[in-house]
């Protein structure tokens, strides 16, 4: 398959939306942080590529669509091709550090792209 950012996002959401653990994580409205990190065996600490504060405001129907758009946009804007080459990079998606989904590299695994969603305390309104 010839990958582009839209297809990458679609591939992830297609798997994610059917995972009960993912539904449990994403269906709670509130603030969360999405981050992309490069994990390589040769480097002891993951390298943070990008992170963004988000807020779920929608109901379930639109959630996955919105999340897909978000992933595609972040892939497009922030992540270098070497970190998002789905043929050579294993993709891991985590919710609060727990692995929700892993998509192994189809060619040879050189490194991982870790997409982590972390729930944050909702800010107090003043």
């Amino acid at each position, binding site marked *: 398959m010839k990958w582009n950012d839209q297809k990458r996002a679609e591939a992830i959401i297609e798997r994610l939306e059917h995972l009960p653990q993912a539904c449990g994580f994403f269906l709670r409205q509130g603030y969360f942080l999405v981050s992309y990190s490069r994990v390589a065996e040769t480097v002891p600490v993951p390298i943070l590529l990008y992170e963004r504060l988000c807020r779920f405001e929608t109901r379930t129907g639109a959630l996955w669509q919105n999340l897909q758009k978000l992933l595609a946009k972040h892939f497009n804007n922030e992540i270098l091709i070497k970190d998002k080459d789905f043929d050579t990079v294993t993709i891991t998606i985590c919710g609060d550090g727990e692995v929700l989904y892993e998509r192994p590299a189809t060619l040879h695994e050189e490194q991982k792209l870790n997409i982590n969603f972390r729930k944050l305390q909702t*800010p107090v309104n003043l």
Partner: protein
Amino acid sequence: MHHMTPQQQQTWNDARRAAFITLKVRAKAAAQKFFSQGQVFDLKIYEKTLGDNIPSVSRSYVIESSSENFWTALEKELTILFNEVPGYAKNFCLIPFQILLNGRTVHNYLPRPTTSRNKVLCISFSRATKPRSL
């Protein structure tokens, strides 16, 4: 409270600390822009020592009310936060303190006499990224 200094006010409590800090911050021109409606910010109260920052309390806020209501709400919130800070760390008569706005010191107070110049109580307001809504 307007003309009060920490030394003149010997009977500090959390509400008075909160009122004092709110007054000082509100008087700064930079605060008008920083504390505008819709902004998200983090408030931290911590002790700064020579080698370390010891976090005490930290919370995130989103400004949803109009200006006048906001300052009242902030004062109430500071009272709650000060209540969580250990007593020795908020002795305004003896411990120097700083108010920081986005990392920049906007108010610096060094009590005389002071117990230590190596320890400073910091009240820090820092702007957080606006969340992307999904």
